[in-house]
């Protein structure tokens, strides 16, 4: 009887995850193609589902006439202002709460009590307080961004390695140095996670606010287009919003890489 030599096989092979790039691209192209086909053969009325080509055509026209930029401009202004105010306030409050036990004792119960409120429910109240112009829209976005930012900054500071703070103190760092040179950089990854979370919330609240009481902006465009049965324009609004979401995420990811070079080199 001869001995058989059997090489050992890697039995974990089925656990490997393959990178299927073509499938990823094909899936998107396939969806658009199917959509176009459905609209072309007329199974679905144009009024309910305009073809992608028609949406693109409409978007080009709106760009050419400058109409799209009017809507986009007022939306971007609200978004930028609300996001900046909310994010900045959230970072400052979150870091203060993370660092000072007094601030935590005072602020945390308030945050815990107000965090669960759906922020859009506050819009009528904000309109009552701030008038019907831009301030309540900016304020509702700022509020929506504030909470995830505050909570993430707080968690980031709390998760900072106490050894690094002690090392800093051993080299003569005082309170402000520790906050600026240890707590802030420690919290940056969490802060950026909060910014990405906040960007999604901001977009949601922007559209909701513009649908409730506005004469401008993408949210208004969508609602108005629906009222006058211009489904193609409505679709343009939705596509612009999704592009806005994707672009803001890309931008924040790029900014994160630039701001946290020690994680990516």
């Amino acid at each position, binding site marked *: 009887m001869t001995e058989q030599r059997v090489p050992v096989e890697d039995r974990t092979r089925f656990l490997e995850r393959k990178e299927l790039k073509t499938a990823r691209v094909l899936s998107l192209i396939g969806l658009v193609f199917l959509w176009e086909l459905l609209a072309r053969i007329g199974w679905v009325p144009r009024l309910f589902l305009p073809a992608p080509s028609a949406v693109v055509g409409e978007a080009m026209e709106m760009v050419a006439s400058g109409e799209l930029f009017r809507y986009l401009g007022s939306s971007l202004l609200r978004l930028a202002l609300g996001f900046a105010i909310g994010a900045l306030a959230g970072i400052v409050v979150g870091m203060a709460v993370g660092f000072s036990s007094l601030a935590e004792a005072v602020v945390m119960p308030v945050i815990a009590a107000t965090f669960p409120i759906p922020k859009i429910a506050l819009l009528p109240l904000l309109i009552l307080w701030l008038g019907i112009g831009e301030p309540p829209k900016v304020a509702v976005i700022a509020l929506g961004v504030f909470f995830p930012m505050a909570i993430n900054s707080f968690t980031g500071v709390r998760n900072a390695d106490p*050894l690094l703070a002690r090392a*800093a*103190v*051993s*080299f003569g760092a005082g309170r402000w140095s520790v906050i600026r040179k240890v707590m802030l*950089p420690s919290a940056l990854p969490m802060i950026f996670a909060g910014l990405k979370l906040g960007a999604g919330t901001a977009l949601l609240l922007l559209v909701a606010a513009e649908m409730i009481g506005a004469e401008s902006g993408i949210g208004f465009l969508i609602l108005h287009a629906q009222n006058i049965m211009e489904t193609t324009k409505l679709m343009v609004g939705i596509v612009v919003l999704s592009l806005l979401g994707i672009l803001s995420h890309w931008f924040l990811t790029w900014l994160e890489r630039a701001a946290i070079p*020690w994680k990516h080199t």
Partner: protein
Amino acid sequence: MRVVIERLSKTYGDRSGQSVEALQSIDLSVEEEEFLAIVGPSGCGKSTLLNIIAGLLTPSEGDVFFDGLRDGSHPPTAMVFQEFALFPWRTVLGNIEFGLEERGVAAGERHERAMRLVELVGLAGFEEKYPHQLSGGMRQRVGIARALAVDPAVLLMDEPFSALDAQTRQLLQIELLAIWERTRKTILYVTHNIQEAVFMADRVAVLSRRPGRLIAIVPVELKRPRSETMLGDARFLQTVDLIWGLIKADAEKALVSPEGG
């Protein structure tokens, strides 16, 4: 600079209200330019002692003095940590400059001094690397450079090489001795490794298990500069044996005690 430790005790209160005595009435002085090692079994409060000297912990009783220090001036110590404790967001150069920044040294001089230390610890060419791009041994060289940068009168080292592999540890011990020969800092070196303590130090302070008491100060009768060949020297082995004899019983107790380690 001479460091005097007088009747130093430290008792920690834990959450259940029980108190744990970490250090009990330590009297010890470290002479100018001396390399003093502190050894003891796990849980003997070695690190506690170092942290109190560094001003990172309040003692329950007793005091630490630095001879010739004016009232209120900053204790001239710098610390090297077991876990390196480098700032991950700072480059090698940035880490070394940290202490100088906090002391308000101007940027130009900071850079110049940091560059000299990069040379001293053999990290030339790695100035702009981040800690995670370095090996453990290189990281601790940064830790040593960061401490030396502030030109401390007393260098405090808390098990600086125990997180490193055996070969790297031995090489760094020799490097540290060479640096010490050149700079002649007063060094307080905490370790659980008796061979390391005897090989490097002028005197070895031996602490008992919790509560940490000073049971002996053993002088090391080896010539300077030290070299690896001395690791086989009869006096080296005798001193190691002597110290091991002093703490063996304690170390055995620590092995079977849940609070040890």
